């Protein structure tokens, strides 16, 4: 290799080293700034227990039965109109104006759904809303948690009541 070529090679090598080091620092700074944050949310579902148990213990206007008794009664009669109507009324009264204004309450026996009642702003539409690219411009973030409880049926069936609650700023 001639002397002129060696010098040219030296300059190229220097440029290459500078380029590699620059990219190296870019990678370090980008990776270093992106902290991976792990949020522990499982305990939050325990809080929904409080909402669910209080709902089940609440007395309804239907023959002075509690909601849990009314679910068992509705299952025995296979008529869920009253429980759906009263559940919606109850949740809309206490949750519509509050931070946890998205809810679904449903009951199942052996994985077969008996009824479900939900807030007007449904869970599915809000999840789609979260995926909306424009949602990054809003600070509204909904956290969902769920809880379930067994209710004994009149013939010892295991009815499962499930509450899914979506809360803002929690």
């Amino acid at each position: 290799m001639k002397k002129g070529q060696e010098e040219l090679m030296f300059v190229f090598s220097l440029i290459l080293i500078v380029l590699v080091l620059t990219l190296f620092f870019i990678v370090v700074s980008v990776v270093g700034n992106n902290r991976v944050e792990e949020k522990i949310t499982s305990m939050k579902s325990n809080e929904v227990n409080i909402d669910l148990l209080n709902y089940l213990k609440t007395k309804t206007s239907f023959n002075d039965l509690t909601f849990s008794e009314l679910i068992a009664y509705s299952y025995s009669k296979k008529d869920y109109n009253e429980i759906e109507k009263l559940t919606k009324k109850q949740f809309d009264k206490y949750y519509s104006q509050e931070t946890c204004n998205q809810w679904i309450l449903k009951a199942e026996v052996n994985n077969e759904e008996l009824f479900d009642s939900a807030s007007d702003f449904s869970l599915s539409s809000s999840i789609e809303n979260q995926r909306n690219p424009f949602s990054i411009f809003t600070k509204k973030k909904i956290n969902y948690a769920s809880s379930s409880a067994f209710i004994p049926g009149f013939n010892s069936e295991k009815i499962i009541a499930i509450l899914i609650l979506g809360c803002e700023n929690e």
Partner: protein
Amino acid sequence: MDRKGDFDLTKEWLIWIVRAIVFFVVISIVIIIIYIPISLSYNLDGLQHSLLRQHLISDKDCLAYEDSRVYPGTIDANKFTQTNLGKCFDSTRYGVRLSLTTNLINTLTLNEKLAKFEFCFDDKNFYCTNRTFYVLIKNDEAEQGLLNIEILNQK
């Protein structure tokens, strides 16, 4: 001009570019592998607030109603006092505001010095949560109501 020399220089230059790219890719992968576990952090603020709320609602020394047993989630209206909650919630790290709504709205603030909820917009320095529970309230008779718990702590 030496044509062969030019060709050698270009060839060598190309080999160096390929080597640099491979070197860069390998180093980047090593950095990412090392950095991800280092930069992993656990955000426990939400969990701590959740535990504090459950403590306030479900502990017999705080708000939970008790006769022969404790009823978690059922609020004893007589326990909703500044003195009682001040005793059960003995922490200087958190500011708490509780509002119990029935026909009336009854509000209590714990750690008043810290409970400056107007600073919650500053989410870099403060962590705030706000949760409303549907509760049953035992007074002379059972009532339905809402218990709102706001908690704030400095990050």
